């Protein structure tokens, strides 16, 4: 490797985490540790009905009997569940502010530093933002406009109070609490998250968006998001994450459930930029996320797009259960790991119905001493006649201390279904670099250009509002000073 590449690598790795700051707000939290009292405390704080508490306790009793899944290609010290705060809300939040001017100015400032000023965003982007700051929804904008169309977009806590029928029917229907230990944990202690319901035939006119922030130290953030698209409806949902710098590892175990009924379409986009830890691998977020969508009706469609650049540990498999006939599942992913980051991410496409189709495009980029794994399962069940899958996963290695791994599971039980899978691993092509350099680009610019081209297939799937930020993030994680 030439010295220039080494220099570039050096610049990448020295690039500090831009969003590492801490907002100083008094927190009100229960004692550390997980037991029935913690769950009762959370439920009480959130003013929940009894059936919800019961549901949580049931999940907790399941969790106690479960062990963490161990199959992932990840290396991290045992998580001490008793050393975590399970609820943290900025003080005085029992009474919700009516509009943004009532929100703690420090909070608003935090978001301004992140480049997502609520005030501006309201006007400029036309995006309704449901901000989760630690565990409580801060402000939900554009609610009125959405209400006119019959769209429900609120925090899950509010939905439990106001729409218990929908919650009872759908919560846990895609990810049962007993699915695995992280889903049981989340079901027991989830504090906030978003709830979206799009009524029959409604096309949601704007992109719905949530920014999650973990703020208080030692607070596991356990969001729970539930999106239901009724017959013939459409919604595009954006989720972005940035977290401030911490030395202790923080646990994050979210559950996201999507349900698409007949002819409905859900597009779910994520930009994940939690704190990845420093150059020595100290600190960083443990991100154990379960995301699963159910294409319940005929002709329904669920599309996941993710850009994963942060977190010390990423364990995330946005999946689709293609139950309805002719339903479609899509997964587009870019995962970039640097320093000591470890990512084990991918998807699971389960074809149950006839003529179901799925497409997987995954791009992994490993730098520094990181490990990046694509793990995906495609299965065709016996009745999935004429089902079709196409998978492509490419990995790029920069430097010889990192690893790129591909672990696909392909299972076909139907002889009319067709699966195609291809994957490749390589380093940045010298010829391409040479070509760019020859035309006057610096080494960094050239690398940036090539990597952007490598990710293009995925980045172009992101909605406009996100595309800019995503490209920025790719640049930050990659190019050091460039971008």
């Amino acid at each position, binding site marked *: 490797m030439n010295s220039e590449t080494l220099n570039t690598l050096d610049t990448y790795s020295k690039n500090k985490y831009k969003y590492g700051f801490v907002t100083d707000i008094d927190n009100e939290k229960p004692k550390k540790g997980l037991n029935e009292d913690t769950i009762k405390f959370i439920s009480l704080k959130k003013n929940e009905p009894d059936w919800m508490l019961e549901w949580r306790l049931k999940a907790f009793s399941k969790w106690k009997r479960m062990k963490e899944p161990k199959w992932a290609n990840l290396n991290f010290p045992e998580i001490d569940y008793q050393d975590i705060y399970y609820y943290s809300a900025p003080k005085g939040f029992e009474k919700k502010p009516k509009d943004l001017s009532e929100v703690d100015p420090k909070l608003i400032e935090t978001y301004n530093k992140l480049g997502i000023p609520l005030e501006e965003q309201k006007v400029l982007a036309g995006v309704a933002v449901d901000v989760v700051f630690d565990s409580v929804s801060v402000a939900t904008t554009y609610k009125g406009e959405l209400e006119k169309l019959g769209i429900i977009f609120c925090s899950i806590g509010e939905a439990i109070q106001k729409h218990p029928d929908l919650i009872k029917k759908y919560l846990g229907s895609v990810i049962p609490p007993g699915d695995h230990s992280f889903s049981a944990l989340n079901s027991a202690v989830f504090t906030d998250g978003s709830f979206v319901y799009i009524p029959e035939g409604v096309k949601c006119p704007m992109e719905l968006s949530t920014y999650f922030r973990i703020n208080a130290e030692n607070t596991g953030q356990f969001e729970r998001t539930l999106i239901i698209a009724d017959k013939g409806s459409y919604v595009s949902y954006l989720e972005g994450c940035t977290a401030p710098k911490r030395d202790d590892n923080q646990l994050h175990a979210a559950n996201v459930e999507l349900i698409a009924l007949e002819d409905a379409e859900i597009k779910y986009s994520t930009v994940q930029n939690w704190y990845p830890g420093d150059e020595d691998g100290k600190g960083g977020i443990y991100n154990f996320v379960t995301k699963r969508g159910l294409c319940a009706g005929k002709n329904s469609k669920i599309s996941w797009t993710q850009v994963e650049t942060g977190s010390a540990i990423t364990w995330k498999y946005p999946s689709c259960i293609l139950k309805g006939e002719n339903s479609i599942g899509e997964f587009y992913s870019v995962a970039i790991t640097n320093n000591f980051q470890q990512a084990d991410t991918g998807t699971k496409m389960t074809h149950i119905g006839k003529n179901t189709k799925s497409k997987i495009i995954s791009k992994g980029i490993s730098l520094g001493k990181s490990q990046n794994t694509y793990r995906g399962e495609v299965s065709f069940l016996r009745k999935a006649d004429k089902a079709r899958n196409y998978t492509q996963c490419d990995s790029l290695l920069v430097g*010889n*201390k990192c690893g*790129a791994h591909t672990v696909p599971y392909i299972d076909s039980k139907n*002889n009319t279904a067709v699966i195609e*899978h291809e994957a490749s691993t*390589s380093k940045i092509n010298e010829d391409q670099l040479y070509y760019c350099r020859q035309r006057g680009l610096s080494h960094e610019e050239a690398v940036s250009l090539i990597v952007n081209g490598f990710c293009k297939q995925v980045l172009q799937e992101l909605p406009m509002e996100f595309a800019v930020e995503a490209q920025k993030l790719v640049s930050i994680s990659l190019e050091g000073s460039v971008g």
Partner: protein
Amino acid sequence: MNIQDNYQKNKKNIFFSDNKDIQSHRDKLINIFETDRFDRKNNESLKNINLKKFIDFKYKYLVSAETSVINNNQDNSYSIVSVNGQCSSFKDDKIEITKILDKDYNDFSKNNTIEKNDHFVNLNSLFLNSGFKIVIKKNNNIKIKISNIVTDDNLTIFQKNNYICEEGSSLNLIEEYENKNNSTSNILNVINLENNSQLNHFLIQDNSSNHNLIITSHSSCKKDSNYTQKVYNFSEGYVRNFHYSELIEANSEADLQGIFFLKDNNTSNNKTFVKHLAEDCKSNQVYKGILNDRSKATYFSNTHVDQVAQKTEGYQLSKGILLSDNASYFSKPELKIYADDVKCSHGSTIGPIDENAIFYLRSRGMSKIAATKILISSFINEELSSIDNEQMSEIIQKKLVRYLSKVK
């Protein structure tokens, strides 16, 4: 009967049971059996298999005297008949055949490429009752054909073979497994290729439906050596082909290929694993499967590239055709890469026979069955046409015709 009792009871006709080192290794293995939870989900060697049948077995072994080695000096070829895993000793200036020794067992038990919880390999080490060692001497070019014969019903054969190709040698090895009796053969081949040596290894498997065959191989390749393995599985009984290859010195190559033809209720488990531990090595893993009726198959392939193994080229391809709606195929083509200057890829497809191709042939007046058969043959044509041994080619064509005659 549990493993411990079974072992103690039959200790007297198990190899090396009086060696202390080996005994302590075996104690560890017994411990693995007693503590393992037989987690089918995470243990590749357990998928699609009734392990109980193989663990709770009745040990039976017979020594037969009918083994032979015939040397045909004219073209440097040897015919070996191995009976119940045993082979008579033989020595000339080109090759040497002996029994396996304690040392060979110990050397292998230190290798950690094969997973600790591969229970079939552990059973083999525990109940080892046969096997031989073949050394190809320096700079010789040899052909060997081995017929593996099992004489009686209900035999449990645990065989460990050692093949050593010394510097500059070249070996063309054809192994035949054609048995009609109700027995189980568990075979472990340990292959060492010295500098600049070459081994072309063909395995023809054609057992009847009540004969179980478990073959595991481990080859390690030194500088400039080349190992090519081709497996043709026509068996009607259970076959497990797990093949591991380690490229330990620069510029070595491993090529692991296989075709399996399944029908009825048959199952086949396949795995190839190539570990690149040095620079400039190449590997290729290609498996193709044709599955009819209610048959099931799994194929795990894995390319592991170590940090030092720059300039590696590693390719994988897995293709499956499902002829019936009750057949199922599971494949897991894995890449684990720790070096940056590599070219690695894998491709995997599973599906039916292309309907457009059938339509094309039928529109030219061919019946549906005839069209299907032609397309199956063309699916594996690349592998068949690459066989340069005419006699082998003929044998395989015949078996293919037999398989196709059952396709409806």
